[in-house]
């Protein structure tokens, strides 16, 4: 499993807006000990992920499976005594993974829905009719145009095309 270690990887992560916590990690293991997913999925181990980053195992970390078990529940982040912000580092890793075109299917579905409808969970015609019937009125309008403009400006659209 050990790929060729790349010394700068830890700093690449640390320079990501959500990744600087990796510099504080002392490998105490409290994050993994607290993680609800680590308890049931052996492969998901926040401390180990931080360790792999520190060791520079770039291609082992940036894959389409490893960083995607995280629930972003922030239990690890809250319990880390050193400000390692593991939950935030997870986001940084995912952002970096996405840039390399590795995106899990479920997330791609959400992204496509966002681009097409301006929201992740969309309404059905049936749901709209029922809302009217029950006196709830229409759902709040969504400005899809604005969403597309924003996502084009940030090149989000290119990111998700890369993954498909």
């Amino acid at each position, binding site marked *: 499993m050990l790929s060729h270690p790349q010394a700068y990887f830890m700093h690449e992560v640390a320079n990501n807006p959500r990744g600087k916590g990796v510099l504080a990690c*002392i490998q105490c*293991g409290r994050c993994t*000990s607290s993680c609800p997913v680590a308890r049931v999925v052996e492969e998901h181990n926040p401390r180990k992920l931080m360790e792999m980053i520190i060791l520079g195992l770039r291609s082992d970390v940036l894959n389409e499976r490893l960083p995607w078990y995280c629930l972003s529940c922030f239990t690890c982040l809250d319990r880390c005594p050193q400000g390692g912000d593991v939950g935030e580092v997870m986001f940084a890793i995912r952002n970096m993974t996405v840039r390399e075109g590795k995106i899990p299917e479920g997330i791609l579905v959400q992204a496509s829905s966002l681009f097409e409808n301006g929201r992740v969970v969309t309404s059905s015609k049936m749901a709209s009719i029922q809302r009217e019937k029950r006196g709830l009125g229409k759902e709040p309008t969504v400005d899809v145009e604005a969403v597309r403009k924003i996502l084009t400006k940030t090149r989000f659209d290119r990111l998700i095309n890369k993954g498909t």
Partner: protein
Amino acid sequence: MQKAVVVIGGGVAGIQASLDLANRGFKVYLVERTPSIGGRMAQLDKTFPTMDCSMCILAPKMIECSHHPNVQLLSYSEVKEARGSVGNFTVKVLRKPRYVDERKCTGCGICSENCPTEAPNEFDENIGVRKAIYMPFPQAVPRVALIDKESCVECGLCEKVCPAGAVNRGQQPQEIELNVGAIVVATGYDMFDPSVIRHFGYGRFKNVISAMELERLLCASGPTGGHLIRPSEGKIPRHIAFIQCVGSRDRREWIDHPYCSSICCKYAVKDAVLIKEHETDSRVSIFYIDMRAFGRGFQEFVNRAKSEFGIEFIRSNPGEISEDPATSNLVISFEDPITRTVQTNRYNLVVLCPALIPSKGMPELAKILGIELDNYGFVKMEDSVRKPLDTTVPGIFCCGYCLGPKTGDIPDSITQGSATAGRVAVVLATEEAI
């Protein structure tokens, strides 16, 4: 120039400073807030790494203090005001009423035997009980009883049975004024309350205790006579875990003790060895981040703990402790450093090693004396390199753990006590602030 000194705090550091100064011929007023001197060392069973009986080392010093012609022991007293400057301080001390005449009491204990009321025993970290009229602990110095008026039901029995007629239920607090040339602060430490770190269950689970509570359980003069039993039902635990760094090395804002408390790894190993000595077939695990066993004999002690005593050292900081309500046993979730998977271990007793924090009352005392404290509330040194025992006020010195985790063990406290005595002696002898 007053050739006298007030030492605030009767722990081992304060005691050492007092003795050195007294032996040099200076007058020492040793002010101690609790009813007896001795401090934390008096609460311990054994010291590390030599496994000497703590009280056996300390008691002779305590007695020397009480008998020394140059030491006036002001126990159960507090400093209320300090004016003046180096060479000439006026210190007001409030002597709290014991409701027992110190001159008459012989320490026989008949009053306590007859007292009908019980209250939690502070010296035993509230594990055991004591009576409303009580002796703080068997080796207390001064060996004088006191009445806790809050628990007292005013039945008057103690007064009736006291053979020395020492009970004085109408005693008033007494304020005395002392003129001294220097002041020594030796107020020691408290333990951080680990109930803030909720997932460890302290305060919620009976069998999760803090290290000082363990010391009292292990100590022969403690509430169980030195038998280690579980708080829940009194059975002997066979599976014990220690968790290090509970609050120490923690940078989170609501905890804010980013420092290493410097003695917990050592005392945990000591306690683990003690437990194994008591119950040889018990399983003892220490969950640590780093094993900081620096200095004389400690690494060797740790090595022995592993090889000779079979203590399990697990390099992992646990995530959660949960309780089995039927048995009051604890389950610790942690990442096993060998298999790299999350495991759970069952224990009968879990000991948390909390961060060491400044003594409560420190902020108030600092204000009275005009000395500065650092961000964690420990005494700030005038110059940490060149004058590490001077406070920011000339003529006021400090020693022991009130300086913070620079103190690594009891010999360090004693060394600092002597060193501070040296600093004070120069001030008193030469009439100069240096």
